[in-house]
């Protein structure tokens, strides 16, 4: 019997009515580099056991640490839970199980060789220095509820490289891979080379001009925006009133060429076979040809919305509650190559990356975000010059409705802690408002 099954049994004996226990054993390793050398190597060896407990309509979560007596911790947690007011959002755990994903664990023989590969790929003409990281995550996850017991290995590699040219301007690339084929295509060599190429192009930067532009977004940049879209599709946030997708189910939110999935079955940094209440994950169609088809659900939010769970229940670090979370947004590719799309742009911009996306009206979707690592003016289908100092000041729904084209290949994109690991093609959007500092 797994530890998590034993924990569920003890919790039920202690008086809990429903229990979801999740044990995550992590062996993570990270190498960070800058200024031509390695800054630090970090390793983590942790075992985290979080337990979600429901009794009498009340819910709580508790962490059982290594060496602690589970019975003692759980008795205390159940007593604590009984004194709480009802959690009227909770209707019960997913009353089933399943999920058959059995990926081969991803591993690297020597992480330093991979670091050197990224650094070497980034060393090209015009690149003065590079900075970046390789993060290898390897988790063994066990989950038990009243209704099921599941386990799987989740392992992946994140590679991020930022290249600086002699002017101090930059190019950046960042991917997540979880299998050998993806590693060969999008691993450290690809990331280093792409970052260096962008840095080589990003020269003689001049201050950009305000206006409304046709913009071709790089997958890294649009992946970060997809992460925002994924967040707003949480049924919990919709129910709370904190989403720009409220009351839009079945409505047009984008154009025919825009079809978005949450796809945790695709190999990658967001892949998983089951969610934190034991529901088997699947490829969920969220936006089909521009029509909003589904929010992201747990079993409880699904009941509230009279539908079925999408298996997106996340218990956070210690399973204190179960809320919907997108695992791995996947924007379906279109037909044309991104080079062909760029070739047809009369006047517009290519934006490689962005950061610091913030909202002034979350409910309406009004936001701004700051492009970086390559903003290029396109004229007559060719990149003419590099810009700096601009900001995208937009509305998320307007931006989605102005999607003009989606390129033929979706790339894995990972962009820091604010964004989810996504798959995004290049995306062409009309009429994007660009502002700048005065």
């Amino acid at each position: 019997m797994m530890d998590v099954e034993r924990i569920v049994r003890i919790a039920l004996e202690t008086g809990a009515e429903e229990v979801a226990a999740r044990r995550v054993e992590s062996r993570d390793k990270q190498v960070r580099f800058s200024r031509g050398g390695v800054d630090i190597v970090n390793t983590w060896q942790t075992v985290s056991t979080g337990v979600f407990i429901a009794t009498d309509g009340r819910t709580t979560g508790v962490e059982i640490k290594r060496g602690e007596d589970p019975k003692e911790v759980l008795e205390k947690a159940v007593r604590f839970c009984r004194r709480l007011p009802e959690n009227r959002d909770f209707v019960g755990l997913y009353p089933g199980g399943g999920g058959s994903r059995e990926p081969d664990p991803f591993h690297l023989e020597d992480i330093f060789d991979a670091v050197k590969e990224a650094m070497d790929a980034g060393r090209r003409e015009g690149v003065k220095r590079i900075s970046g990281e390789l993060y290898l995550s390897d988790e063994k996850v066990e989950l038990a509820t009243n209704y099921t017991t599941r386990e799987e290995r989740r392992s992946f590699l994140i590679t991020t490289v930022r290249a600086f040219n002699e002017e101090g301007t930059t190019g950046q690339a960042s991917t997540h891979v979880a299998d050998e084929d993806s590693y060969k295509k999008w691993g450290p060599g690809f990331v280093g080379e792409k970052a260096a190429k962008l840095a080589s192009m990003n020269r003689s930067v001049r201050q950009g001009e305000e206006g409304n532009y046709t913009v071709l977004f790089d997958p890294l940049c649009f992946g970060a925006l997809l992460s925002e879209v994924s967040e707003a599709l949480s049924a919990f946030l919709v129910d709370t009133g904190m989403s720009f997708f409220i009351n839009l189910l079945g409505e047009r939110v984008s154009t025919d060429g825009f079809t978005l999935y949450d796809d945790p079955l695709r190999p990658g940094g967001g892949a998983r076979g089951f969610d934190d209440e034991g529901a088997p994950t699947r490829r969920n169609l969220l936006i089909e040809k521009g029509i909003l088809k589904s929010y992201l659900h747990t079993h409880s939010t699904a009941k509230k919305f009279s539908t079925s769970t999408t298996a997106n229940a996340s218990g956070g670090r210690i399973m204190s509650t179960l809320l919907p979370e997108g695992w791995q947004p996947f924007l379906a590719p279109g037909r044309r190559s991104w080079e062909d799309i760029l070739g047809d742009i009369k006047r517009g911009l290519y934006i490689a990356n962005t950061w610091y996306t913030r909202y002034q009206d979350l409910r309406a979707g009004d936001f701004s975000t700051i492009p970086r690592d390559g903003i290029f003016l396109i004229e007559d289908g060719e990149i003419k010059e590099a810009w700096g100092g601009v900001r995208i000041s937009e509305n998320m729904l307007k931006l989605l409705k102005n999607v003009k084209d989606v390129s033929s290949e979706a790339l894995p994109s990972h962009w820091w802690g604010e964004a989810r690991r996504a798959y995004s093609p290049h995306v062409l959007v009309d009429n994007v408002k660009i502002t700048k500092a005065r």
Partner: protein
Amino acid sequence: MKDVAEKALSYGEGKADYLEIRAERKRYSVNFLKNGILVASTEGIERGFAVRALVGGGMGAAYTDSVRMEDVKKAVDEAIKIARAAEDLSSVRMAEEEAHVDFWEVKEKEKITDMDNAEKVERLQDIDSSLAEKGFILARSQQLIDSILEKHILTSEGTEVSSRLPQVEYYYFIIAKTEKGSEQAYNQLAWSGGYEGWKRYSPEEWVTREAEILRRVIEGGRALKSGVMDLVVGPEVTGIAAHESSGHPSEADRILGREAFLAGESFIKPEMIGERIGSEVVNVVDDPTVEGSFGYYLYDDEGVPARRRYLYKEGKINEFLHNRETAAVLGTVSNGAARASGWSREPIVRMSTTFVEPRDHTVEELIEDVKYGIYMKSFTEWNIDDIRFNQKYVGREAYLIEKGEVGDPVKRPIIELTTRTFWSAVDAVGRDLEFVGATCGKSDPMQGVNVWIGGPHMRLRNVYMRW
């Protein structure tokens, strides 16, 4: 945990050029109320060890959540092993520092452990009821988090610093909606100490007042014609500008490129000390020792004593924030800015309480000298580029100033300007001083650290405002 850390340090003695063991134990409770429903309520203990080793120029760190001696010894071995493996690719050094042996703590008047969870939930429910009664606050999200952090920092150089830090944090995000539109507000009211701090902020009054402000902005807030005008900013706006465009660019790890691939670098270069960046009335400081502050500490996470740092002094770039690693590169000593957000993170250069030093004006004096301008008391959307030069703040509570009088509410005024433009435009600084809490994000894996931001009111001349 301290005895385990001591034994682990002895075990690793002589095997690395520098060895540091940080043991942390945090007791916490979290309550999360959404639209009147208690979505999460939990309490527990988080604990673990961080081991850092420097071998040659290689730095390795190993983290474990086990408190068993053999596992912490394994972490020591691992940190030394990976530091050695990185030695050929690295040239990390640490600046000289005296060994310090000390204990510090923040006392609570109303102890966190004496506060029953039922009362915490009740406080959130009372605020929620007050908001719900208004009828126009459609989205109400609140969290009440408290914690007591016990920490021990031991190094092979003889440093041995222990601490006990209680903290309380109240966070809200509300959205008001009427037929005329919607507006949002959020804030973190947070402090070090016990529940006596609740009275300082009076969250119920604070949030219900905020709700009424949002209604007034929706119902009567006007968008004006964009143009150059004077601007009076409140402490929250002063604070976010101090944090984003003075604190962050003064972090020496950014200046040196160690954060380049994520959080970015800085428009400030090492040789820019003494260069003018703002007007003579501008002093921006970062000070971990401000009593009751959310970023409070007396020794940093490398065991270096904390002190006030003048980042911009009389409008000139004056001092960077350092840990021992960045100080070594720039040939100086650490000024105690090394912080790790928890036991599973490395200490990097961070802010604490970043604010503009108050001067001589009353708020009335700042406003009475404005013929036509905007009074932006607080902000909602904001962002800044990754060298901390191009920034934007959107007003949340804002009013028109005409002939020295504060008038009607103004809807979402925007300033989008450079760091130099912002600080150069300041011509007068108020004598008031207020702070709010914030969680500052940096690094990968992400490290969110507790800070205060704040300052007095300030007046800026001839700023381009847009709508």
